[in-house]
């Protein structure tokens, strides 16, 4: 199995130091998402992989080839790496037609062959007919696909995408999110995608690397990272809505009973922590179900009577802020909210399944 190995450090004068160490398969499809807030170094890592930025220290190896080794001063130029880079603003050449943009990187081929490959690629991207247009006259979504076509027509070993959807408006962005993943799958090459939108991360990625202040804080399969953030900061970043201080009062064979600080509420979670341990509880809004009236039999271990404090509409979902002895957030669909007759002041029962509560020791 061929691997991409990367262990680098890049310092900016007057800026932060950015460090990244990871390893991913280099020969089969997978999407690694670099996720983190603005300025955390996502773009910098991508640029180091492409050879556009020189790390101050470190090694990058791709299969047998050493792309960078600061100890031996080895450095392979961007031209030689055979990596495809999709820039945030697409960086289409404004003085060339769509066709010439796509053909731009195809050298050393006969004219006919080049034309064949370009039109094949444009077909594949549903861009045929646009060959002679200027990129300026096209919509954001079309521009994105042209940029992708320009990169993919060279059959790169890797694909690096820097916020591929952020230049688009929301309507287009949401529809292209799905298309993009399908497209990447169909090409079957390993990809790195930078984003600071967790919905985008979920929609596009397999692997997730969470960056904070220039350092990779957590990485692993998308699900694992999302359901088990390593600390509260990552948890908050990933969209956990309620982060509640609590203490373990009773531990029993993987199940722990906790008492929420300052309240009398007790919660059961799956956790091996000993009694007396102080923890943060992370509860995602979508893991909180709300019921009114008498609760029937249910698999949820935690049933918390709570009062609705406020409702906030957010697109298809409603964010319900609850007071159950502690601050709790639930996400429900609009018609669920209507069916339940949710109003500020209404009483509800919040159901939370034990495995859905994530415990971070503190």
């Amino acid at each position, binding site marked *: 199995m061929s691997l991409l190995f990367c262990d680098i450090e890049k310092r900016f004068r007057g800026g932060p130091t950015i460090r990244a160490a990871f390893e991913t398969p280099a020969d089969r499809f997978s999407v690694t998402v670099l996720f983190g807030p603005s300025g955390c170094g996502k773009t910098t890592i991508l640029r180091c992989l*492409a*050879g*556009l930025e020189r790390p101050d220290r470190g090694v990058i190896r791709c299969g047998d080839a050493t792309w960078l080794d600061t100890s031996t001063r080895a450095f392979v*130029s*961007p*031209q*030689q790496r*055979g*990596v*495809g*880079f999709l*820039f945030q*603003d697409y*960086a289409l*050449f*404004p*003085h060339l037609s769509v066709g010439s943009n796509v053909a*731009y*990187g195809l*050298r050393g081929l006969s004219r006919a062959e080049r034309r064949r490959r370009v039109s094949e690629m444009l077909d594949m991207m549903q861009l045929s007919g646009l060959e002679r247009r200027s990129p300026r006259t096209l919509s954001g979504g079309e521009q994105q696909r042209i940029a992708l076509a*320009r*990169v993919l027509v*060279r059959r790169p070993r890797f694909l690096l995408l820097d916020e591929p959807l952020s230049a688009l408006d929301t309507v287009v962005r949401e529809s292209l999110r799905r298309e993009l993943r399908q497209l990447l799958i169909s090409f079957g090459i390993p990809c790195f995608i930078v984003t600071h939108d967790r919905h985008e991360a979920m929609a596009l990625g397999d692997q997730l690397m969470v960056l904070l202040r220039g350092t990779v804080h957590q990485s692993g399969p998308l699900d694992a990272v999302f359901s088990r953030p390593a600390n509260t900061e990552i948890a908050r970043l990933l969209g956990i809505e309620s982060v509640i201080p609590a203490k373990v009062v009773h531990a029993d064979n993987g199940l722990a009973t906790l008492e929420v600080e300052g309240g009398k509420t007790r919660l059961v979670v799956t956790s091996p922590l000993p009694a007396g341990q102080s923890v943060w509880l992370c509860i995602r809004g979508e893991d909180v179900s709300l019921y009114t009236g008498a609760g029937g039999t249910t698999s949820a271990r935690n049933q918390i009577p709570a009062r609705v404090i406020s409702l906030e509409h957010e697109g298809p979902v409603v964010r319900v802020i609850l007071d159950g002895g502690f601050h709790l957030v639930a996400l429900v669909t609009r018609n669920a909210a209507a069916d339940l007759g949710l109003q500020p002041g209404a009483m509800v029962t919040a159901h939370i399944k034990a495995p859905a509560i994530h415990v971070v020791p503190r």
Partner: protein
Amino acid sequence: MDWTAIWLTLRLAACTTVILFFLGLPLAYWLATTRFRGRFLVEAAVALPIILPPTVIGFYILWATGPRSPLGQAYQSMTGSMLPFSFAGILLASVLFNIPFAVRPFASSFAAVNRRLVEASWCLGVSRFQTFLRVVLPMSWTGILTGLVLTFAHTVGEFGVVLMVGGSIPGVTRTISIAIYDDVQALNYAAAHRTAIVLLAFAFVALCIPYAIQRRALPL
């Protein structure tokens, strides 16, 4: 009208422009892209001819190219002829003197090219030189045009340096500006006025070209 002088001047301006096109582009590209910390020294040196009196420059060029200087001797042993008082001599002087008028617009238009486009080209496997030819040049043509027009027009109007190095030989080194000067010295004001008006009109029209093409004020 002194047609010999006009023809000579146009030839000189054209040669200067062509030479500075080929010399100026790499220098400007280096200035626009280098991370060398002493770049400002090179930039200051490039801009010097704007500031120094032309006659001072001409005076030193005359010394540096004369038959007793190493450069003059090398040129003489190679070509068998002399630099001062020849077309080659005033061409050399004119090229040196016009460096800033070509290089500064070139460099500022190169610096205005979106670096992302250059990097995109590199990542598409295209070499630095090819990227320059296929992306940077076509995208900065208005700046290059400005530089070429300034160089051409400034050579037409140049006077001091050529006077010092040229020796006012009709058909060889007597350019139009020197012709005007000679006319003024000979109290031949009517002829001087005529020629000056033509020169003024030419300069104005030439300058209008880049400014009219460039929608936004220069880099401004």
